[in-house]
């Protein structure tokens, strides 16, 4: 067994998930491929969204994949970092907005 939970080489084997459930695996990859095609949003814009989400869900495979994807698309490092900040801001905002709940509860319990 690997002595680490994450092995970079496993990313190449992502497609293997279809081996244990062909129908669901294929449906997923078909959907995934479709999502990232050019559409109302460009494939370039979607790559940056994916990069931001990859950081928020803290998926090392996705971070590797979408950093490389961004490089391939000619996305600059400044654009990539801004996307990561957009993700981080939403994530921290999501934490902080719960502060209102804390405040509400505090007020309710206090005399």
């Amino acid at each position, binding site marked *: 067994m690997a002595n680490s939970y994450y092995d970079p080489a496993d990313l190449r084997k992502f497609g293997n998930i279809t081996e244990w459930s062909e129908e669901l695996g294929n449906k997923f990859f078909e959907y995934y491929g479709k999502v990232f095609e*050019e559409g109302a949003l460009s*494939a370039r814009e979607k790559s940056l969204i994916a990069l931001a989400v990859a950081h928020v869900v803290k998926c090392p495979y996705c971070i590797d994949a979408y950093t490389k994807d961004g490089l391939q*698309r000619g996305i600059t490092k400044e654009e990539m970092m801004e996307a990561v900040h957009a993700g981080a801001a939403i994530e921290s905002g999501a934490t902080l907005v719960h502060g209102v709940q804390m405040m509400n509860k505090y007020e309710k319990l206090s005399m």
Partner: protein
Amino acid sequence: MTQSILRDIKKAAKKSLKAREDELANTQKQLEVLNGELFSSGELPYFKDKIAKSGQFPLKPKTLEVLQINVGYMCNQVCAHCHVDAGPDRKEIMTRETMEQCLEVIRNTGAHTLDLTGGAPEMNPDFRWFVEEASKAGIKDFIVRSNLTIILANKKYHDLPEFFKKHNVHVVSSMPHYTRGKTDKQRGDGVFDKSIKALQMLNEVGYGKPDSDLRLDLVYNPSGAFLPADQTAMERDFKKALKEDFDIDFHNLFAITNLPISRFLDYLIASDNYEDYMYSLVEAYNPTAVENVMCTNTISVSWDGWLYDCDFNQMLDLKVASKVKHIKDYNDDVLNNREIVISQHCYGCTAGAGSSCQGTVA
């Protein structure tokens, strides 16, 4: 650790592998890497077996369309990714005698495209004479691959845009990115600003303008261990950025994949990216790209007159598998019967939408 290795590469990259006496300057050594354990162990399939699966082995030439002549490995730049291992320290340049032999072939060939490359072809002292003579042969598309900075490298090159225009040369130029940082990282400090200035000079004489017959195309190579994205999308981004920021016009963008040979191979190995890069190439294998791969319609001629299936085979010293091996003995019919020489670097031309000196092929 990788960062320090990359710094070392950058420092060393002021000279060619040959001048550094690096073991990868030896083409045998490069072929050993390309035939190495990654493929011999069966982990990845040999290119030969891959194309055999889709019934495309052996690769045979179709009608000759492009005669590509490398007039020498001397260059004013030492780009980190260069598959030619070109640089100021390379002294191999084509003599006028070999150029005469090439002209004889150019006058009689059925090829519609003549493609001059290097190094910086303009640095060959007989370059202008050769262009003048070759332009009389009535070839439909006469390409010179110019690195742009040469136009500004010395006063004697400043009139190149006018010279190209006079001989109706189709200029194809390297431009790795529309931002300064990425361009300079790959090609050297100051290259971006000089390239921009050179493109503006070409625009001034009429090159690259939307309705102009003076063709100006750009070549994009990824500056790192990744493949180029969709050529159309890249062209759209380049056009927008170069127009908005520098008022530059050009016609088409060719996205070319870096092949794992010479200095790019050296970079891949030193940065520990070789295995991943080969996986990327093999995973992106596209049988449709094999159909139109450039070695099927091109002959590449080296500075000393030897014949190759492509410029990459030239740099690996894999000569054509034919009785005719030299420009002095050139014969279309004999050459057309050859089988194309392949190795694992060929995956670079068959990945994704494919890659050739004219951009994507599938």
